[in-house]
């Protein structure tokens, strides 16, 4: 049986965002504990650039998603699983926006304009206010912890479909055309 799959555009965007987010988690955790140094300033900038890129790609994904409904989940899946999958995906979209947005607002509140790739200044949505910056730092941190947990669940679910259910779910999101063997 050959599976119905996501569009190539959706697949490309999915894996680009996955790559960036899986890199941003450890980068964020690592850089935040460094003592102030030129390296730290560089890493913060790369982190911000990549994070804003996630935000932009998430916007593209959402717009694409609204016009290109994904192939329906196999009817063999229990209804609760399908509902859980939808809810999980909806939440993932929420985090793809909320996490970079909280980072951007934090920087703004600390008085640091975010300049995308050192070239394109983003508007500062907040006036400088250090106490607010401290609060948003915590918001960014705890949103990230929740995002990490959700992404971990997402990945575990994909593995379960691949290796336990063997229902070709991962093929729906893969770039190379494969015949699933079920």
């Amino acid at each position, binding site marked *: 049986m050959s599976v119905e799959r996501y569009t190539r555009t959706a697949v490309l965007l999915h894996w680009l965002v996955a790559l960036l987010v899986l890199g941003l988690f450890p980068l964020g955790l690592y850089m935040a504990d460094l003592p*102030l*140094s*030129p*390296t730290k*300033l*560089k890493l*913060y*900038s790369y982190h911000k650039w990549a994070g804003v890129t996630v935000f932009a790609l998430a916007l593209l994904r959402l717009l694409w998603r609204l016009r290109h409904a994904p192939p329906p989940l196999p009817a063999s899946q229990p209804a609760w699983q399908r509902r859980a999958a939808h809810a999980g995906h909806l939440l993932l979209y929420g985090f793809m926006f909320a996490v970079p947005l909280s980072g951007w607002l934090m920087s703004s509140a*600390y*008085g*640091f*304009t*975010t*300049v995308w790739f*050192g*070239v394109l200044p983003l508007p500062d949505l907040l006036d400088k206010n*250090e106490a607010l910056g401290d609060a948003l730092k915590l918001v960014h941190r705890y949103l990230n912890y929740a995002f990490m947990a959700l992404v971990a669940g997402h990945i575990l679910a994909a593995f379960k479909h691949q290796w336990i259910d063997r229902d070709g779910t991962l093929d729906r999101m893969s770039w190379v055309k494969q015949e699933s063997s079920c």
Partner: protein
Amino acid sequence: MLKRSIVVLVLSLCAPFVSAAEYGLLVPERSRIAFTSKQMGVPVEGEFKRYKVDVSFDPQRPETGRARIEVEVDSIDAGSKDANDEVRSKGWFDVKRFPVAAFVAEAGSVRALGGNRFEARGKMSIKGRTRDVVVPFTYGTEGTEAVLEGSIPILRTQYGIGEGAWSDTSVVADEVPVRFRLVLKPR
């Protein structure tokens, strides 16, 4: 005759206000010494909160102008908590050893550039190092007060501000122009 002498009297009374006076008393509340550093392409605002100014300026006779601005380096606000701790350290301003930075322009060092624009040639000393600088500024008035605004060009590495790894100017730009706005009352 009477009419004319009244006119003369009125004119001479007004004279100190109309014709330029020599300005020199700082109005600190409305004055400011600030700077913009650039970190990874991001402009970051900072300022010096405490400084002493001994300036004398007469727009009609700029050649008599002179200036001595002494900045208390420890009053720096570099824009963030981290930066404020860092810039006081040895590799940056080393404030313990070098508490004062000064700009000095002797009498005769100011010249008019036309219109309301002027230029002062002086010496900038930071962290025990002295460099010649040319400082363009403008002259304006607010009520009876003079407003001098300009910018002192500073290349931080010339003064050893940010040594070692921090001398990498692709992270923190070399140019850190220091802007001033000095509001002065007539002496």
